[in-house]
């Protein structure tokens, strides 16, 4: 009895140990086979991997890892029917597993059986129609099957079923943009902004991905305009619209939007000021001027008022700056404006604007900069030398604590004295800037060039050359080119004597002083008096240039032609041909003759520095599509 009583528990313990050992052994074998199958799969031996997975699945059809591996392999080997059977068998156990259902649907899609796939996706949705995750899983599965339009429809259904029109906004927008449906994508992104205004930056970055595409910017702008009209109180929508206008360089439209933004966001002019600065940088002068003016007038206590006013004045000034890159006729472009009178009112406004700054912010650096600009405008645009002189003298007197501006003023004042014919005073100004020590800054170098030029105009050629020596030694200086060309000109024309050069310098002085008629007489007299000197070709060119500046284009052309004919060896001929082309093109508006001159330049001087410009102009006039 006692033994029997012991045997039974012992037996049961032994059986239990045996079962456990067996079970552990089986599990160990399963693990080994599973790992082996995985390594087959990794090495690309899918058939061997499949056999093992099938065997393991047969033994344990409830193991999710094995089932998943088997599904993966079936799909990999395109054995879609077997994959479907597998998924269906799994679904028998858990019929409402949305993950399994979406996988099954994807396999039908892979098999190109879209109706079946849709049926299964519908089953998945039916499992839990009130859950956001359901729609997300189904739509993701459809997206993976690259059925983007269906995925969008599912998201939309989800919104409606859950009664939340803001759900899935980012997902839907992204899908629309992928499908290049920019209109709908933008609408969704606008929803995102409405939900969360802080998303403006994100939305802008997403929209930027398609505004560069064909039609993308126009479509997007149209949609945002509609949105702004329907919701005029939404500042972020206005900001987005302004950004789109600026992308399209419609600064005029952006201006109105920024006015609204500034008002609605209580920015007190900050938004407008930043916009004006950008418009100025982008050379949208009209808009920039208007915006700066708004800031000044609407926000009298704007913290950067001085800068806004200076920005306004600069805008007025720069709007008129016609750039002549070749500078064939010096700093003054004889074709830039139809008449100086046309440009004057704009420059006058700029002067008024600068004056205003000086009055409101006296003794400041910005006032000094404004005064300098006034002096420059008076000197260069109005030829009001007394006015320029007066401004520059005030600068010297009242603003000496801004050395860079003061030095610039001195140089300019020297120039004014020079043009007024007071060479002594001019020299004194230049000398003050140049100093007596080594040349260490640009102002000093420019002043030294001016001093050398003064010596040249006075006929003191050796002294001029001496001054130039210091400048030509420094190849990095901006003044070196001017110095070198004057040095070369003097050296070449001093021999055998400097009589002709002296006469030339006198004429050149008048030309520089803008006394064109006088200069013309001097140059013409030089041609008569010294017809056989080397300087005659340069003289003829100067005559042609003066005639061009006097807008006597026909006579200018005749002079240039005489030069071509009489001085075929002159080094100035290529420049002369270029000038002829420009007079024909921009003065006489004769395209045929202009092209002829440029062609002649290409033919005779194929290595000239002007060939690229000549080619470009010919092609522009021909209307070539280059």
């Amino acid at each position, binding site marked *: 009895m006692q033994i029997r009583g012991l045997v039974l528990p012992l037996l049961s313990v032994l059986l239990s140990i045996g079962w456990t050992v067996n079970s552990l052994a089986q599990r160990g074998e399963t693990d080994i086979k599973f790992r082996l199958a995985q390594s087959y799969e990794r090495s690309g031996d899918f058939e061997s991997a499949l056999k093992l997975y099938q065997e393991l699945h047969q033994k344990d059809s409830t193991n999710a890892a094995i089932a998943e591996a088997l599904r993966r392999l079936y799909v990999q080997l*395109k054995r879609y029917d077997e994959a479907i059977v597998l998924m269906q068998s799994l679904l028998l156990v858990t019929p409402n597993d949305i993950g399994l259902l979406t996988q099954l649907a994807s396999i039908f899609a892979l098999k190109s059986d879209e109706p079946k796939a849709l049926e299964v996706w519908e089953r998945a949705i039916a499992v839990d129609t009130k859950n956001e995750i359901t729609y997300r899983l189904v739509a993701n599965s459809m997206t993976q099957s690259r059925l983007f339009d269906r995925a969008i429809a599912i998201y939309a259904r989800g919104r409606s079923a859950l009664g939340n029109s803001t759900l899935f906004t980012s997902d839907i927008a992204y899908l629309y943009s992928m499908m290049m449906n920019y209109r709908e994508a933008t609408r969704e992104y606008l929803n995102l902004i409405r939900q969360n205004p802080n998303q403006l930056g994100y939305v802008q970055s997403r929209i930027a991905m*398609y505004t560069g595409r064909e039609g993308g910017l126009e479509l997007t702008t149209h949609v945002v305009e509609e949105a702004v009209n329907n919701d005029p109180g939404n500042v972020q929508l206005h900001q987005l619209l302004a950004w789109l206008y600026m992308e399209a360089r419609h600064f005029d439209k952006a201006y109105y939007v920024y006015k609204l933004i500034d008002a609605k966001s209580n920015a007190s002019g900050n938004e407008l000021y930043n916009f004006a600065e950008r418009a100025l940088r982008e050379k949208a002068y009209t808009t920039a001027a208007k915006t700066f003016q708004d800031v000044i007038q609407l926000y009298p206590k704007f913290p950067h008022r001085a800068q806004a006013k200076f920005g306004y004045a600069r805008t007025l000034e720069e709007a008129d700056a016609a750039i002549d890159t070749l500078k064939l006729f010096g700093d003054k472009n004889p074709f830039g404006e139809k008449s100086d009178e046309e440009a004057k009112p704009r420059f006058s406004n700029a002067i008024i604007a600068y004056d205003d700054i000086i009055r409101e912010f006296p003794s400041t650096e910005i006032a000094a900069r404004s005064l300098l600009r006034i002096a420059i405008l008076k000197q260069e645009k109005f030829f009001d030398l007394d006015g320029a002189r007066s401004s520059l003298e005030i600068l010297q007197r009242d603003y000496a604590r801004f050395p860079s501006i003061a030095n610039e003023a001195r140089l300019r004042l020297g120039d004014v004295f020079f043009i007024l014919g007071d060479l002594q005073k001019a020299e004194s100004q230049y000398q003050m800037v140049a100093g007596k020590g080594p040349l260490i800054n640009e102002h000093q170098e420019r002043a030294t060039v001016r001093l050398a030029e003064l010596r040249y105009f006075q006929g003191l050629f050796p002294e001029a050359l001496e001054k130039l020596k210091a400048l030509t030694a420094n190849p990095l200086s901006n003044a070196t080119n001017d110095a070198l060309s004057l040095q070369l000109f003097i050296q070449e024309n001093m021999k055998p004597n400097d009589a002709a050069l002296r006469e030339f310098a006198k004429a050149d002085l008048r030309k520089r002083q803008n006394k064109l008629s006088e200069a013309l007489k001097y140059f013409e007299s030089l041609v008569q008096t010294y017809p056989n000197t080397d300087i005659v070709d340069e003289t003829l060119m100067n005559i042609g240039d003066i005639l061009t500046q006097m807008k006597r284009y026909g006579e200018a052309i005749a002079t240039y032609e005489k030069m071509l004919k009489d001085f075929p060896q002159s080094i100035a001929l290529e420049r002369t041909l270029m000038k002829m082309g420009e007079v024909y093109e921009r003065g006489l508006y004769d395209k045929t003759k202009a092209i002829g001159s440029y062609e002649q330049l290409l*033919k005779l001087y194929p290595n000239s520095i002007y060939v690229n410009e000549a080619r470009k102009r010919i092609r522009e006039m021909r209307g070539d599509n280059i």
Partner: protein
Amino acid sequence: MICNLQFAICNWGTNPLNSSFNLRRKLLVACCSLLSAFCSTLFAQKVLIPMDLKQTDHLKAYGIAYWVLTKNIEVDWLLNYQGGSFMIDGFDIVKSECRIRGVWFEELSGAQASQVYAEIQSEDNNMDAIRLEKAPKIAVYVRPNSLPWDDAVMLAMEYAEIPYDRVWDDEVLQDKLLQYDWIHLHHEDFTGQYGKFYFSFSHAPWYIEQQVMYEKKAKELGFRKVSELKRAVAEKIKEYIAAGGFMFAMCSATDTYDIALAAQNTDICDIMYDGDAADHDAQKKLDYAQCLAFENFTLEKNPLRYEYSDIDIPPSDIALALLNPESDYFTLFEFSAKYDPVPTMLTQNHANIIRGFLGQTTNFKKSLMKKTLTVLAEKEGTEEVRYLHGNFGRGTFTFYGGHDPEDYRHEVGDPPTDLRLHKNSPGYRLILNNILFPAAKKKQQKT
């Protein structure tokens, strides 16, 4: 003194057919030369556009030759004479246009021109003159809205001002290629794997957009997958070549083209490219007989690796580590101008050692090339072929490895190459040789 060479494309090759043909041909050439010399050039002034180191803008010179042809003026391409120069009747408009475009030229008297032709025709000189008669009509197979700056051929044509049309899948499948003499394949991946950029760029907007656009196009044209559409396009292009067309491909458009043709009976695209797995037996199912240029190649099965097969050498993803830009050069072969005019035309240059440049497909492995092909340039002492040419049916094809001859390593998003800075590029010249080559007069050879 033009030999007025009458040749048939199908007879062009590296080997003369037989010696009696050669003898007859030489006699014909000599007679023609004398007659032409007397009649056409003795009194006429000529414009010679040298293509050696004297030339100021080699690339625009090709544009001039093309422009002259559009004016119904014939051009003689003087093979191996001063770097493959052009001789044109001395019309003023030709001279003027050369000047405007910045192309160097010399004016020759009739007698001087005769001397040049005599020198060319001399049996002692490996030179010949090929008459170009008609400006070839050019098409570029490129997706709509793509910019020209990412393709060396389009860049070269834009710079040289050679007009071209863009064609895409619709036009190719509608047999519109037959309207063109020459087609260039933009950097297309004919395997349907979107350049195998998945690993690096699958999240980039341009990649996503491209994939969607391609899928849309495939569906629109009745194809289930992009790879199937691209294969159909490759086959249409093959038909175009067989019918006498000229095809030129660079970079990955070369090997992917052949891979697509070989993969007729299988699926080589993995799930991220066409939505389902690749056929794991794809390698075995390749049909090399369908290929134009390559055979026995092995596919790169890793979908994340930036390489298609072992045709490309060195493989794209390790090329930079293996190659040194300073010592990476390839050499042009020299052919007999009088007997092998086609390869001679294609290799005209002022340099015969040319700086290498990388591409998704940089060089072709010689051992995987079909034996009928002509190697035009290779990296000496290696298996790396850079430039090859072959015939198919009545047409020809030329493959040129690498992406941009003046940008050693051109990457996605890099700025475009400014050819104004590379007017004398020998690498770009090879591209432009191909464009003029179809302008040569085609006629049955008198044998």
